[in-house]
């Protein structure tokens, strides 16, 4: 059963449309929405990812397809047939491209195509029940081959970005720490120098002082 539907632009992760009153029965719906948003943000960084993918998260699965720089994503129960989910996304894609195709690139504000939610709503209802004649027919249709679609875990997907982040963070930490090391080394050097010569200087100083005092008094 479809729980969430979101459509976003791949290039900048800008949300374009979202299903109406999505996630009514989902606990922690905000958490999943966050994950979806993080996923969208990652898409731009990974242009080589396959255009269709399933991502497991908790008791649900995100299915998404990327087409024409737009990502169509839906969240379903794990038990929901993958085939139907992708059928659903295909339907959305076709309609979305038909209606809003030319304006996708120029959309400048979030949810610029929020009006699409009525269509999402309508289509969603068609796919709600897996036992309808229509859906069974689709399931049996061999035209759509979904077996080779990769399934990964959400941590993994989001993790890719995270790891990259970690590396860059580590390297930047390395630079800054090496700079600190250099500073400290210079500092230590100076201290060693002082420690070495200070006693000598003091002794000389005292001697000269005594001389000076002596010449003054006597």
């Amino acid at each position, binding site marked *: 059963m479809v729980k969430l539907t979101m459509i976003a632009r791949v290039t900048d992760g800008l949300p374009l449309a979202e299903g*109406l009153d999505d996630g*009514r029965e989902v606990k922690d719906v905000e958490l999943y929405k966050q994950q979806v948003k993080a996923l969208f943000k990652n898409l731009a960084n990974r242009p080589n990812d396959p255009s269709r993918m399933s991502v497991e998260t908790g008791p649900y699965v995100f299915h998404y397809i990327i087409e024409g720089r737009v990502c169509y994503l839906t969240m379903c129960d794990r038990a929901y047939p993958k085939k139907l989910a992708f059928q659903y996304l295909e339907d959305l894609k076709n309609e979305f491209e038909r209606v809003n195709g030319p304006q996708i690139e120029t959309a400048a504000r979030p*949810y610029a195509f929020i009006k699409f939610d009525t269509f999402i709503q309508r289509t969603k209802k068609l796919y709600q029940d897996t036992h309808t004649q229509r859906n069974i027919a689709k399931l049996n249709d061999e035209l759509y081959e979904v077996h080779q679609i990769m399934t990964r875990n959400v941590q993994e997907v989001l993790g890719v970005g995270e790891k990259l982040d970690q590396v860059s963070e580590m390297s930047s930490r390395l630079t800054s720490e090496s700079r600190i090391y250099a500073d400290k080394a210079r500092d230590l050097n100076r201290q060693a120098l002082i420690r070495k010569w200070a006693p000598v200087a003091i002794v000389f100083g005292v001697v000269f002082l005594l001389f000076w005092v002596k010449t003054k008094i006597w």
Partner: protein
Amino acid sequence: MGTENPGRPSFPASPFAAAPPTITPFSNSGHVGGSEASNLRPTRPSFPPNTLPPITAGPAGSGEPPAFRPAPPTRFNDPSLPAPPSSYGPPASGTFNRFPTPPFGSMPPGPPARAPLVGQPPFQPPPSQVSPPPPFRPQGQIPAVPMGSPPPGVNTPQIDSPFPASRPNFQPSFPPTASGYPATGASSQPTLPGYVKQSNAPFQAPQGPPVQSPFQATPVGYAPSAPTPTPHYLSQQGGLAQAPPVASPYGLHSRDQIQHPGTMPPMGSMQGLIEDFSSLSIGSVPGSIDPGVDSKALPRPLDGDVEPNSLPEGYSVNCNARYLRLTTNAIPNSQSLVSRWHLPLGAVVCPLAEAPEGEEVSVLNFVSTGIIRCRRCRTYVNPFITFTDSGRKWRCNICALLNDVPGDYFAHLDATGRRVDLDQRPELTKGSVEFVAPTEYMVRPPMPPLYFFLIDVSISAVRSGMIEVVAKTIKSCLDDLPGYPRTQIGFITYDSTVHFYNMKSSLTQPQMMVVTDLEDIFIPLPDDLLVNLSESRTVVDAFLDSLPTMFQDNLNMESAFGPALKAAFMVMSQLGGKLLIFQNTMPSLGVGRLKLRGDDPRAYGTDKEHSLRVPEDPFYKQMAADFTKYQIGVNVYAFSDKYSDLASIGTLAKYTGGQVYYYPSFQAANHSEKLSHELTRDLTRETAWEAVMRIRCGKGIRFTSYHGNFMLRSTDLVALPAVDCDKAYAMQLSLEETLLTNQTVYFQVALLYTASCGERRIRVHTAAAPVVSDLGEMYRQADNGAIVSLLSRLAIEKTMSSKLEDARSNVHLRIVKALREYRNLYAVQHRLGGRLIYPESLKFLPLYGLALCKSTPLRGGYADVPLDERCAAGFTMMALPVKSLLKLLYPSLIQLDDYLLKPSANADEFRKVMKRLPLTADSLDSRGLYVYDDGLQLVLWFGRMLSPDIAMNLLGPDAAAELSRVTLVERETEMSRKLMLLLKKLRESDPSYYQLCHLVRQGEQPREGFMVLTKLVEDQTGGTNGYVDWLVQLHRQVQQNA
């Protein structure tokens, strides 16, 4: 004086200083042009006592001059002084020219002539002589001092002086004038002496007084010059000081002065002050009902609300006053100043006010760069920020923090420090802009506009015909609901059970589901109770068509309002939206049932009185809180003919930013038009959804309390599930620091909302106001409308926690305190002793205060207004924008018969017709036809002696019938068409409500009573004050503790 003195150095002496004020009074009186007055004043003192000859001339002149008033007589300690002159003169300079020639010729006859004119005068002198001496004495002395000084040479100048005609300033003119008029002067002299003598003798009385009265009436000051010299002269002779001229404080009404000469203290004011304040003389004997007060001259807001436009230079980029109005456009700089400003200090905000064509707020898209805001205080970019560091940084105008300019937003500064791209940046040039909100401003995708209807179908609702009107109206609006194609719609009806309707688009007829379990209400269907209108249109149409007939035989008298409300909440909670409740029967079943706690007359006047006006059952407030949380705004339409505890039910609207519409004793035949217009407006006006509003202000001040219909989400975040152009919010501010150091403070209202088209936007209004250290400046910049609006909200809130009487006296007290403070500011130094003075900006405040005390929520006690009506009016007034509120408080009254009788009607004439009359029974002529318009209803008042022709033309054969049963319809006559056109115009001028037109004939009681007579706020009705009494009372209290 200084100016004149040039001639004689000697005079400048201190004594005069005292004198000037006295003279000034003229300016106050208003008769005189302010500027001229000042000039005059100096002359008088300057004259040396020696100047006899001129004086003589003077008297003659004086005869003409208006001036004599009681004062002169008073002075009479010395018989010698005919002197009245002092009073005269100040008046118009222009007149002087004229003066010389005619006066002299006329002179001799003059005195006698005058006397006859003035009927009243004769008695004056005697009283004045007797009583006045003591008060005037001191002043009289003053002149004595100067006397010594006058050099002999002075004489010539003096002579001249009378004729200074050419210039306003007398002094310089003397030499020349003298030459010009020597002859005349000479001639006049002879007559004068005689006159003088007479005056000294018993005759004085008759002569002096007569002169006065006529002149006062004539505003034009006759040559002041003539009179002025006289005083000196007198003083010499008598040895008395000149009488200080008593300024006519009472400028407004000459009658007053005459009547109470004895009591009046001398008053003076400086011209300059005229700009500062206005004053009004009120019964000189405080407290007495003074017939002398000319009620016609009292200030009245007959032009409606005038927005303050006196903003100083540099504030031109402020947002328009229709969005944000401060109670005073000068912010006090210290706590002590705040405490002396007894009126509310704050703002009234109407964030979505309708803008006229061409002035719409421009929408800017900052999604790519992100909206520029201050890092610390989150202020939005606005015209008052300053760019520094060659455009790389900007300084926040509110918290003064230096922020970086984002790279995308960078622009170079030109030589004057302005950005080169300024003209392409509306956010830097306009006080009001709208930003498209980026994703960070959304917790969810923009919601679709959603309308949910909760309709009472119990027997009384059916009988009143309400259901039919509602169904028809909704159906007619379906095409105009905002937000196509996303708009969602749903219905629940209820009596003793709750009925749900499945409107799935695939159905042809809606399916009704009845839930009888009121204790544990549930939703029978997960989807399709709330449907997309465009998809389910046919089902919705079918439902609305069948709704009236579905229940026409319903005999159910119960109302399970509470459970139905909960059900509606469950259906809507996913999306939010607008819930419209049509309620006809008091809730009697299930949770939230209400008791007939009733309109208990015994509760009035006790401490429990207010509890009738607050919700009894916490259920409603709790529900309201939940509604707000889930972005649901509630509008309540109440129709009951019996008590239905609107205080409780209205709470739903109050805390969700909604509105209460009340149609007492609704009958479809009479009220359907009003209901359908208002419902249409409610459904189709542009609405902002799931909104929050915050107002920010500069360092050192803070908004502390908010007043209106909404719920506060945090200390300063106003949650408004659904808001539109007809709602305004008020807030009060206070100083956080004891002393403000900045020169200017800024206010920024930001409303984050979802437009019906699905765009999330931020509307930002920014305004600046100077900080002042002078209370007078605060008064000068005061905004009457905003003050009245805040005062009324405070008063209505007060009725929720105490007695009506307390709320009224609170209003009264604040006005008194404010006027007293103002008085302390000016009266002492300018000796405005007996007059009520008030700032020009607040001249209508007393009247509005009176109107407020007589408004529906505050008026009278138990019997005066039904409780429900009182509560409904309270809810309404808490939301009204300033303009509508002022109109409601002081409605317009327009005379129509002349207009209707005139053959042609063009646009120009319309404006003439719309002349508002004072709201008093005196304005109603029994031969006329009047329309009364308070923004909520119209009343056509037919005078008893109105020509039957008009009545026939307008009402046809119904003209003779009792008007309560007659409805006004357009007839086939020219007159009727004109009337309807005019009413249409009146309605168009205020579209937020539909003004149903009631007809009343003079003397038709009791309808006339409650429809018109009680609304005439200036009249004394049922134990309340009339305008004049109110002013007298205010005045007395102002003086008491001054």
